[in-house]
């Protein structure tokens, strides 16, 4: 690849250019990042290993120049950059922002849910005061609101273009924006063939940040991981996004290839016993399983040691509120057996261990090793591969898998946010059907509470202590995102785990 063109490969398909659309898959979110801007963004920091990461603690202006909270704290007023321009040259106005936010909270599905996380729920909350002033009226004071404005969803759409292509049945121009982005971002989409490739071309008139260094980014879809590895290794591509752990481990020693491995924030790979099923109603059975997992083997075999261990914690009570942190379990079959005896399951039992076909890369070896160890304490687990299409329905919506592997990572990096999704009864990622009155109450209290609040840390610690003891989710490890580069620098890790091409530079 020559000059200022960067070629990247990924295994996944980008199926839409509009993150608000129903059916838009996760890999497509990067279009929202690269082609659209938001009011605000996060800062950038350098991690210990020298790689770049976004900085959750810093909110930076993007389309907005500045913002301030109303005196009662129940509104935020944003001042837009006067020079702000969409890719078609028209100015970015507060009306565009309002239309975009109205769209996000109205179309339903994922964008609406994500907006809600930041307490952004109704169009009435959004107000275009004048061309360059945009006001959000808050429903409640929440620490989540501002960071939630920096996630990909509240992107700012050129409402004039969109409206020109809207119809009666399609007031939000879903059809049009799905294939034709209308943003102000650093890159334009020059070509898009789903299943093949996406080509970004630099927007030379980008107004929301410094001009990117590369002119073109070609993102090729190569389904076979082995082929992706070969391509990077031979230097035919500049970047392999989301590499398998094994390749990351082996290629990181290679000259000319840099592998950035970043533990994914607020994310844990878990083994979940489902409390709706008999043996797992007993806490001791769950603990027994937690003691039976061959953590180290699993971590080495399934993750090739990439990521962070989440087992072997020293204390039964947390000393800080960092999340995720090591659970106080490690492999101890004696203890596991004893606990099972105590619970009256000394003779073991049979249980299906479900994994998702589409995440078989890590789930399968993990499940196999767990299965083997469970056999040692008398539990006969049969591995049940659930088709990808069925996985969400079975595990998260119907929550009917007795014992399964699960992963959840919160975009907003707070423990309470994780708890909100993963430990509250009925909430989507609580696939264990766990319910604990204290957790319910504590989560509700902490969710919007400021981190600085002196009550915050003790409450969080208490929450962590409870879920450590009751283990409805047995933490295995914190996964990492691997990105291999060759002749390219400036790769930055983002919580959304999508490729941000804006900072890339050819070496």
């Amino acid at each position: 690849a020559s000059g200022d063109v960067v070629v990247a490969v990924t295994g996944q398909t980008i199926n839409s250019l509009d993150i608000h659309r129903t059916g838009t898959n996760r890999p497509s979110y990067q279009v929202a990042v690269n082609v659209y801007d938001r009011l605000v963004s996060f800062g950038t920091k350098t991690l210990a290993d020298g790689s770049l990461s976004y900085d959750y603690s810093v909110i930076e202006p993007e389309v907005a120049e500045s913002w301030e909270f109303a005196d009662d704290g129940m509104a935020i007023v944003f001042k837009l950059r006067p020079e702000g321009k969409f890719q078609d040259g028209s100015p970015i106005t507060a009306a565009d922002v309002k239309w975009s936010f109205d769209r996000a909270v109205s179309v339903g599905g994922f964008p609406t849910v994500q907006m809600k996380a930041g307490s952004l729920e109704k169009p009435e909350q959004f107000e275009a005061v004048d061309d360059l002033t945009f006001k959000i009226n808050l429903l409640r004071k929440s620490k989540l609101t501002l960071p939630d404005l920096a996630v990909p969803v509240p992107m700012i759409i050129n409402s004039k273009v969109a409206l020109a292509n809207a119809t009666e049945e399609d007031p939000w121009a879903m059809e049009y924006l799905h294939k034709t982005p209308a943003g102000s971002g650093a890159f334009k989409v020059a070509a898009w063939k789903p299943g093949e490739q996406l080509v970004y071309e630099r927007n030379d008139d980008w107004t929301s940040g410094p001009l990117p260094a590369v002119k073109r980014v070609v993102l090729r879809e190569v389904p076979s991981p082995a082929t992706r590895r070969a391509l990077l290794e031979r230097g035919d591509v500049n970047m392999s996004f989301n590499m398998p752990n094994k390749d990351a481990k082996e290629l990181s020693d290679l000259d000319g290839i840099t592998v950035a491995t970043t533990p994914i924030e607020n994310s844990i790979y878990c083994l979940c016993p489902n409390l709706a099923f008999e043996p797992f109603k007993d806490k001791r059975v769950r603990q027994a399983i937690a003691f039976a997992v061959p953590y180290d083997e699993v971590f080495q075999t399934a993750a090739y040691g990439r990521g962070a261990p989440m087992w072997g914690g020293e204390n039964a009570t947390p000393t800080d509120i960092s999340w995720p942190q090591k659970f106080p379990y490690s492999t101890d079959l004696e203890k596991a057996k004893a606990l099972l005896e105590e619970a009256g399951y000394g003779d073991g039992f049979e249980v299906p261990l479900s994994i998702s076909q589409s995440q078989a890369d890590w789930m399968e070896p993990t499940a196999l090793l767990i299965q083997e160890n469970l056999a040692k304490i008398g539990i006969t687990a049969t591995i049940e591969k659930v088709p990808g299409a069925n996985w969400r329905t079975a595990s998260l919506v119907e929550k009917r898998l007795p014992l399964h592997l699960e992963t959840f990572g919160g975009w907003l990096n707070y423990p309470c946010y994780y708890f909100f999704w993963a430990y509250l009864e009925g909430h989507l990622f609580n696939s264990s059907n766990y319910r604990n009155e204290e957790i319910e109450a504590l989560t509700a209290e902490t969710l919007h509470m400021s981190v600085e609040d002196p009550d915050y840390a003790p409450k969080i610690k208490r929450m962590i202590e409870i879920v450590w003891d009751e283990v409805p989710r047995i933490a295995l490890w914190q996964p990492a995102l691997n990105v291999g580069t060759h002749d390219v620098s400036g790769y930055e890790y983002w919580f959304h785990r999508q490729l941000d091409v804006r900072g890339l530079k050819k070496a």
Partner: protein
Amino acid sequence: MTDSAQDLSPQTTTDGPLAHMVYVLRSNPVTLLAFAMFLVLIVAALFGPSLVAYDPLASNASRALQPPSWDHLFGTDNLGRDVFSRVIVATRLDLAISIAAVALSFVIGSVLGAIAGYWGGWLDAVLNRLFDTIMAFPLFVLAMGIVAALGNTVENIVYATAVINIPFYARLVRAEVNIRRDSGFALAAKLSGNSDLRVLALHIYPNALPPMMVQVSLNLGWAILNAAGLSFIGMGVRPPTAEWGIMVAEGANFIVSGEWWLAFFPGFALMFAVFTFNLLGDGLRDMVDPRQRT
């Protein structure tokens, strides 16, 4: 009156099927080879589990991804399982899948094909359209669809493989039955008081068997490949069961990183089996059709 009787009947009496087989095997080294290979497969399938040194399911993270050595003839996989043991033990399952699938399609295809070929008319037309419909599907994708819809268990893989093969048998039987439907011996059987069903089942159908045997042996190979293909796209049998297709599919990802043995040995076993069945088909054809010989 017995003049021409004896001398007109040549020495063919000594030429029993066994003698013929021996002859074909002896004169065609490739077929002999195929039969020898077939024997190897059968032995591995019957005694596989007692032939191997390691538990094919036992993992050992500390000896993962070791290249072939005297300890592990075919090396170990990413979970530290012995590839040799897994390859040998998988023989039984792979053969079972293909044999069960072929048996199923053989039986169903035979019945439907015989009915269509013998009675003809609207029944034939309907059945033919049915077979056409199955054939009009991209067969591999149909198999995938069936497995996806029913769930990926061994039985469902067998059913899916059987369904896509039914038309091949049905058409073959139909053609064979059809050419014999009005043959002299079928009519003679009717004159002897056989009902249509008896004529079909006892007189016509058995004569369609030899060409079917060829199809069977070829299809055994197809069935194994089919199951392997399903595994490759993640619709194969359940882990940790050892099955060649899965092993190749998973091992394929390790080739580029240099751990070639993961895919190579099961791939070789797969090829060995399919190769055997295909060669066997040719050999059987030679046995059935002496015209092909000089």
